[in-house]
């Protein structure tokens, strides 16, 4: 029994780590630019398929290093051409636009790569389980968690100590004042968007190694990421981090006792949190309005 529980908690934590990467990117863009990026799952897929395409030439490690920045460049272009004209407008429009974009990316990858799943080969030593007893903890899973931890730590260091990070945080609180201080807000938004998409691309590469690639995989991860943000508290990145891990573990644990409800439980969790703490676990006053 303990093994089953441990297995599912581990599973939950790993899935939670994906939610965290996705949700942090979404959260960054939402907080600064007030854009709900429905195409975030699409960028994850792009990252995964880029990795799939370049792995035969430069290997898994090269793809891991190269695919996320390439995805971020695509994101930068999309932001510049499609999303920038919408900043001053009702958030409805950016929502609809990214919604349409998500359709196009999903259908586009299906058109180019076919509807079947594609495997991405990972280095052989990572595919081994650690021990017979803990057969479910493969090296790759540990490796994924390590990459997520490193990425999240770097993100928080970036936001805490670099000039760009300070500006992003300041802009989240009061973009008008930041603009009045002579900071190029357009540039700030673009860079912030690129950082968010970089994280989506990174999750795409990691997911490709674990689950294989499918054009629809991004859509499935999108809704839990939304819930991670809402549960953690909109406007709070540490909240998003906690929210992602929490719903991952919650759905993992539910899978032990009531498999059919493992997906529904995250919605229940969200309803309970919103009832008891309408701002979310880490939400701050004023962030919701």
């Amino acid at each position: 029994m303990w093994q089953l529980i441990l297995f599912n908690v581990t599973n939950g934590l790993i899935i939670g780590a994906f939610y965290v990467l996705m949700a942090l990117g979404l959260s960054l863009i939402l907080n600064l630019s007030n854009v709900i990026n429905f195409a975030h799952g699409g960028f994850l897929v792009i990252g995964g398929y880029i990795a799939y395409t370049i792995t035969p030439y430069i290997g898994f490690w090269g793809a891991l290093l190269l695919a996320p920045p390439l995805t971020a460049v695509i994101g930068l272009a999309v932001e510049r051409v499609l999303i920038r004209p919408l900043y001053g407008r009702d958030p409805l429009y950016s929502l609809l636009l990214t919604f349409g974009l998500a359709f196009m990316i999903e259908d586009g990858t299906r058109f180019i790569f076919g509807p079947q799943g594609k495997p991405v080969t990972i280095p052989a030593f990572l595919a081994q389980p650690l021990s017979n007893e803990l057969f479910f903890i493969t090296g790759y899973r540990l490796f994924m968690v390590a990459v997520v931890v490193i990425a999240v730590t770097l993100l928080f260091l970036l936001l805490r100590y670099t000039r760009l990070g300070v500006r992003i945080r300041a802009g989240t609180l009061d973009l008008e004042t930041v603009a009045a201080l002579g900071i190029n807000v357009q540039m700030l938004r673009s860079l912030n968007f690129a950082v968010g998409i970089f994280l989506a691309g990174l999750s795409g590469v990691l997911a490709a190694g674990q689950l294989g690639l499918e054009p629809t995989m991004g859509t499935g991860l999108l809704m839990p990421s939304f819930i991670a943000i809402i549960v953690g508290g909109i406007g709070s990145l540490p909240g998003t981090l906690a929210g992602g891990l929490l719903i991952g573990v919650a759905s993992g644990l539910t899978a032990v006792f009531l498999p059919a409800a493992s997906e529904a439980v995250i919605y229940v969790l969200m309803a309970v949190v919103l009832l008891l703490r309408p701002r979310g676990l880490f939400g701050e006053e004023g962030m919701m309005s």
Partner: protein
Amino acid sequence: MSSEQTRKLIALAAIWAALLLAPYWMVPLGGYTSLATRVLVLGLAAMSLNFLLGFTGVLSFGHAAYFGLGAYGAGLALKFIALSTPLALILGMLLGGVCGAILGTLIVRRRGVYFAMVTIAFGQVFYYIAFQWSSLTGGDDGLRGFSRQPLDFGAFKIDILSSANNFYYFVLFCFALAVGVMGFILRSPFGRTMIAIRENERRARFLGIPVERHIWIAFTLSCFFMGFAGALYALVNNFADPRGLHYSQSGDFVMMAVMGGMRSFWGPLLGATVFVVLQDYLSSVTVNWMSFVGLLFVLVVLFFPRGLLGFLQRSKA
């Protein structure tokens, strides 16, 4: 009567004439009557959403949930409770509306993008329920095994099952009823208050209007209308689909409202007409219709943000 009023009256007469005669002009144009019925039902859904979106200014991106609930409510009523079309419509409407009223209490305090996010996430709850509870709902395959029933007036019966035209006029009657109520609410002091909240929420609050309660009432009413439209949709297809609850369906409804023109009462009907006909056409000519629908979203947002009616009005002015 001023020329403005005359123009409005003529437009209104033209809309109803076009709707009343649809079975006669659609078929020669290459359409079919059940396509007209579908346009009417989805148009009603888009108008119900726009009741909230366009007239209260609150962005709900999860309204398909209440549409789908209406469909499941009607289907389950026909399957398990009684073979009565009106009862199915009423129960479907109630299921959508009551669920909306309950969730609304959790949602109404949020605004803008956050309102949208929470509505999307809560909307998905019902998708998962419909998907997972297969013993009741049929799961992924959808709810089958029911069909709309003839209308029984005691002395005579109207067959709406096999006659596409009869059914179209029945749906048009329901549509007129719902749209009439909607128009009546929007003209009432309550409707004016909704528009005041849309225009300037802070000012409305300073005037002593309980904004949260008004938004909750508007949300709930729009869920009732949505449930009604969903119940009709179940009758159209004799089938309830879990994908009708999914947020991508919500996106389609928002698109219909935006494409037609959010600020006008009839805009969403126009948007629904264009959207449904286009989707019907695209899915018959290409397997990549999803890309084209996505492209349509992008183009409308970038170039026609006020929708077709907004575009026409502005170019006239």
